[in-house]
């Protein structure tokens, strides 16, 4: 392992109860990676959204399933992967509806992925339905 690279992994049952602990895990890592407060907030929220999606969409709140979060950083980038073994989804099929339209249709969804892509510097989704789906997120570490 690159001496400057640090690896962290968290496995928790698939329940929204664990979102707070996931955010604390992320914020500790951001602090160590040297992210400023604003960027820490963005990464925390992005990981929360990714994990909430796994809990809801991949596992339909089945708490016997596990959400896995992997983080690494060096002095340039912080990378966080959120992993599930659910059916996955095709990100290109997600409509980027206007918030106005969602409101008119009384839909509340579709905001999470938008926040993630706004807040992270790179977002990539790899899926093998039923095997392993991973949302890769990267944030550059800007010098404070």
């Amino acid at each position, binding site marked *: 392992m690159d001496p400057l690279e640090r690896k962290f992994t968290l496995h928790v049952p698939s329940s929204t109860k664990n*979102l707070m602990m996931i955010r604390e895990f992320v914020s500790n890592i951001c602090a160590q990676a040297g992210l400023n407060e604003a960027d820490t907030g963005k990464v925390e929220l992005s990981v*929360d959204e990714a994990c909430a999606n796994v809990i809801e969409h991949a596992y339909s709140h089945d708490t016997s399933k596990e959400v896995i979060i992997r983080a690494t950083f060096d002095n340039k980038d912080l990378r966080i992967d959120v992993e599930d073994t659910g059916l996955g989804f095709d990100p290109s099929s997600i409509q980027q509806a206007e918030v106005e339209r969602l409101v008119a249709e009384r839909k*509340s969804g579709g905001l999470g992925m938008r926040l993630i892509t706004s807040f992270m510097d790179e977002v990539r989704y790899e899926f093998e339905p039923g095997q392993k789906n991973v949302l890769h997120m990267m944030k550059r570490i800007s010098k404070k």
Partner: protein
Amino acid sequence: MANPFAINKEMQDGLSIIHLEGYLDAHTAPQFEAAIQLEIDAGRFQIIVDCAKLTYISSAGLGVFMTFVEEVREQGGDIKICGLAPKVQQVFEILGFSTLYDLCADVPACVQRFADAPVKEF
């Protein structure tokens, strides 16, 4: 452990004021949803959501605002929001919520806004 979530409600001159505190995420959003539903079921459509003590919001929390806003506006009411901390405000803005909702400084400003523009026009 970090600040959990709490909801407090009060009435003021016929307006429902809902004070949020702590973390509004996918875990706590259902509580917030139930609180708004209660107002609507009671026929109270003028709702102020005071976020002064809200330290965190994720899309699940924002979804609650989206779910109900059309319904209350059809009834001549509105959901007006105040007290957003900068970190929370940023999330509202990224998603375009600042054009969809009246975002006010504090509760008195929301009360005034209800007097000036009962339903937000956009």
